[in-house]
Every structure is written in structure tokens, then in C-alpha cells.
């Protein structure tokens, strides 16, 4: 049993100069065989392992990660959490996650710094206004909090926005989801890792999957850089590298992997206490607890695994940021980076069984997977444990690309993907 994190443990450890904190997770070598192996130690993969152990009593499982946990897209996203999606299936999925977020720090005994500071989405043309109003109504019918704001209300909620009607893309209105917000991305990975480790899950870092062994239509195990691991169930949560892993099993996916960029500024005093996203000009901004502006840019249109994006994408985003927030004109940017996101043709994820028995995929989250981390893990664990999807992820099966029953969130969600 791990020691509980609390104010008392903090004080106690202060006396030993914080040098005696127990390890949050072990660093084990892989066993010969597991009941299930999760490929990918990001937030989604670790959450999957956590819920497999906690809710489905599968304790003899492992998470294999080619780098270090949370070092991929979990550590690269802009940490925005919201559930104001248009379609019923998406609303169900993302609001399931949001509800778990609301109690996650307590559940994990790990402060994920979930901050319900609200997310505002701006409208810049008449079609945006119509779309956002439609989405507001759809959200409310699904029990998701959403309000439509006119230009004055936008200005009141976030005073630094330039609401002049003379700019190239004037702010005509916006929507607000107050339950939405941000969380600390690393803490989510670490909190789930600690929780899973406590229940006996092996978290194996620096262990890259090199092959998937099949016997006919059934999986038998995985080849890794740390040797062969026998298992009957493989849950792949490899984000941008999903197609690469699928290829090892002879499976083809409807995905394209593209660079998505983000950047942060130098830290400044609190200036923006919410998250503002803009679909039409593709710029979104929030401020981290350290004071940095966290700015999300768009994806490049070509396939790349290089974790580098084009400069003009960043330039376009910063143009939009400067027009919407003239106050930021003299801010200097500290860091800029790219992550590789796997995008489905309908911009909705896949949480599904496959044609190969024992092989499950959780992928296609594209540009917006972080917000779904707890819900994704919970539903994927359910799918793996029962070999059947939960009703909330039934619509996100891989066969929808054959049946045509797509969940088209392209542009219909609050931001262009």
C-alpha cells in the first residue's frame, strides 16, 4: 500500500528535505506472460491499465512504453478539457470523461490540477454564429452546460479580447462551457501510473514494440526490445504511431498521422483566466499556472512522424492571436514543439475491437485526445475486459468506416480539426 499524499505527508517529508519520498511507481522488467498488455504509456494507456485493474480486476497486466511515460502527446498537448461536442455519441463520450475529471484528483490521491475555468469558443462569421448556436442547443439537449454569448458578453467574460468590428475576423459572439477547463497533463499520466502500479500493474518504460505475434486470427504476444511477452489481449493506445503498430499485425487503419504544434510564451502575471478557442482563425490560448501563455496551433496537411511542424502554421496562429489580443504583441515565445496526431476521416476516435481476436485499438483521437483521457481509459478497459464495447463507445467502432455510420465531428465540434 502506498503512502497517501496529504498535507501531513508533505510536512513529514519536509523534515527529511524531500529526499525520502517513496517511488510513485516501480521500474520492473517484463514478466514472461500477462493477461493483457497495453501498448503505449501515455495518459490514455495508463488510464486503461488503471481501470482494467480497478474495475475489472485484471491485475496481471503491463503497460509497455517505448520512451518514458507521458513523454508523447500527453506531454505535448495544450491541456484543454471540454465536452461541448455536437453529436450525441461524442457528447456522451466526452462528458463521461469530464465527469470523471471532476473527481479525479480525489480518486487518484494525486493533484491533477483540474481547473474548471471555462472554455469559450468564438464566432467570427455568420456561419460560425449559426453553427455555435446549433451546437449550444445540441449540448443542452444532451445535458451539457453551454451558453451562447453575444459580443458584449464575450468582452465581459474575457476583457482582453479585441472585439472591435473593424478587424479582419471580428468577434460576433461565442459559446461558453463553464465546466470545461484545463488540467496538468504530466500529473494525469503520473497519477494514473501511480494508481495502476499500486494495484500491481507493471509499467515498463524504454520498451518498444517490434512485432505482434499472431496465430491465425488470434494474438499470441508481442515482440519488444526487452524480449517476447506472451499475452492473449493487446490494447494499443499508440496515438500517432497507431498505424505502425497496426501494420505489425497486418491490420490497416483509416488514419493519417500529422504534426500538430503548440507553443508557450515567457511567464507573465495572470492575464487570462479562461480558455479561449477560435475555430475560424485557428488560435486558442490559455494561461498555465506558471504564467505562460499556452497557445495551440493547427496541423500540417501532410503525413509526418518527425514531431516537427511547418513554421507558417505557427505564424498563422500568432497572426490571429495578435489580432484578437493586441496586448500580447510584445510577448516573447519560449518554446515551440510538435506532436504527431492520428486523425480519422470523421475526426472522431476509434475505441474498438478489431478483426483480430484479442487485439484492441484506441486511436484516432486526432487533435483533441487529452480531454478524453479518463473516459477513454475507462471505456477502453471495459472493451478489453468484456470483449464488448461499453454503450458509450459502441458508436466509435472501427466498422463505422465500412457501414458508413460515421460520427462526423469535422468542424462541427468547437474547433476545426
Amino acid at each position, binding site marked *: 500500500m502506498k503512502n497517501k499524499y496529504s498535507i501531513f505527508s508533505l510536512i513529514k517529508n519536509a523534515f527529511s528535505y524531500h529526499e525520502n519520498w517513496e517511488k510513485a511507481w516501480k521500474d520492473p522488467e517484463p514478466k514472461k506472460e500477462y493477461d493483457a498488455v497495453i501498448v503505449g504509456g501515455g495518459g490514455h494507456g495508463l488510464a486503461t491499465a488503471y481501470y482494467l485493474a480497478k474495475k475489472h480486476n485484471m491485475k496481471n497486466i503491463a503497460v509497455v512504453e517505448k520512451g518514458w511515460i507521458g513523454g508523447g502527446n500527453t506531454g505535448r498537448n495544450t491541456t484543454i478539457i471540454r465536452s461541448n461536442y455536437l453529436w450525441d455519441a461524442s457528447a456522451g463520450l466526452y462528458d463521461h470523461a469530464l465527469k470523471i475529471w471532476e473527481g479525479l484528483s480525489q480518486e487518484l490521491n494525486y493533484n491533477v490540477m483540474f481547473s474548471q475555468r471555462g472554455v469559450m469558443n468564438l464566432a467570427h462569421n455568420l456561419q460560425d454564429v449559426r453553427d455555435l448556436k446549433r451546437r449550444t442547443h445540441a449540448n443542452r439537449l444532451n445535458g451539457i452546460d453551454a451558453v451562447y454569448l453575444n459580443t458584449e458578453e464575450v468582452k465581459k467574460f474575457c476583457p482582453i479580447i479585441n472585439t472591435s468590428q473593424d478587424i479582419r475576423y471580428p468577434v460576433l459572439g461565442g459559446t461558453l462551457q463553464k465546466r470545461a477547463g484545463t488540467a496538468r497533463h504530466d500529473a494525469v499520466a503520473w497519477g494514473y501510473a501511480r494508481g495502476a502500479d499500486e494495484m500491481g500493474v507493471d509499467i515498463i518504460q524504454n520498451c518498444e514494440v517490434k512485432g505482434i505475434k499472431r496465430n491465425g486470427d488470434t494474438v499470441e504476444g508481442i515482440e519488444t526490445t526487452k524480449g517476447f511477452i506472451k499475452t492473449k489481449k493487446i490494447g494499443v493506445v499508440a496515438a500517432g*504511431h497507431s*498505424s*505502425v503498430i497496426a501494420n505489425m499485425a497486418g491490420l*490497416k*487503419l*483509416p*488514419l*493519417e*498521422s500529422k504534426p500538430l504544434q503548440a507553443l508557450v510564451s515567457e511567464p507573465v502575471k495572470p492575464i487570462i483566466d479562461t480558455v479561449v478557442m477560435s475555430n475560424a482563425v485557428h488560435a486558442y490560448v490559455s494561461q498555465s499556472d506558471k504564467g505562460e501563455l499556452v497557445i495551440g496551433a493547427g496541423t*500540417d*496537411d*501532410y*503525413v*509526418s*512522424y*518527425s514531431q*516537427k511542424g*511547418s*513554421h*507558417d502554421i505557427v505564424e498563422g496562429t500568432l497572426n490571429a492571436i495578435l489580432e484578437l489580443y493586441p496586448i500580447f504583441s510584445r510577448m516573447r515565445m519560449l518554446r515551440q514543439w510538435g506532436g504527431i496526431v*492520428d486523425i480519422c*476521416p470523421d475526426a472522431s476516435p476509434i475505441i474498438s475491437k478489431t478483426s483480430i481476436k484479442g487485439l484492441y485499438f484506441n486511436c484516432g483521437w486526432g487533435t483533441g485526445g487529452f480531454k478524453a483521457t479518463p473516459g477513454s481509459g475507462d471505456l477502453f478497459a471495459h472493451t478489453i475486459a468484456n470483449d464488448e464495447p461499453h454503450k458509450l463507445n459502441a458508436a466509435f467502432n472501427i466498422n463505422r*468506416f*465500412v*457501414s*458508413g455510420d460515421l460520427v462526423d465531428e469535422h468542424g462541427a465540434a468547437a474547433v476545426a480539426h
Partner: protein
Amino acid sequence: MFLINCPFCGEREQSEFKAGGEAHIVRPKQPTELSDDEWAEYLFIRKNIKGVQFERWNHVHGCRKWFNMIRDTSNDQIKAVYKMGEKPPVK
């Protein structure tokens, strides 16, 4: 960002171009006879290779012509460009 050698205009910045996805996907000759699986394969399934991949690109802010490219997606290095209808210069 990288430079692309347009087969019609010569070397230009990548920002002048639009990527058109995987190349050499042949439109079904008999669309009415396709099964749902075959439609899914044609419309949605992509190789999405980490490594050398065949792609279509369009010089949208230039000559506006389409052409093919062979590019390593792991490091964005371009191996070759060739015109539509031409055979790939390397395998």
C-alpha cells in the same frame, strides 16, 4: 518546413503547396459493383507509412498543378518528385 522541387516551377517553399494525401489510389473502375469493404478501403483506409511514402501534392500558390512525391515521413526528406502519370523513379 522544407523545400519542394516542383516539377514545373523548380524549388519553392513547402508553404506554397498543399498535400493531397497518398498517391496511386486507383478510382474503382466499376463503382456499382464494389462491396462496402472495398468502398471503405478506397475511401478511408490509408497506408500512413512511417518511412518512405508515395504522395500527391499540389502547387496551390504557384502553377496549381498536381504532381507526385516520394518522401520519408520519418524525417520529411524528399526522395523524388515526378509528374502525374509518370512511373515512380525509385521503388
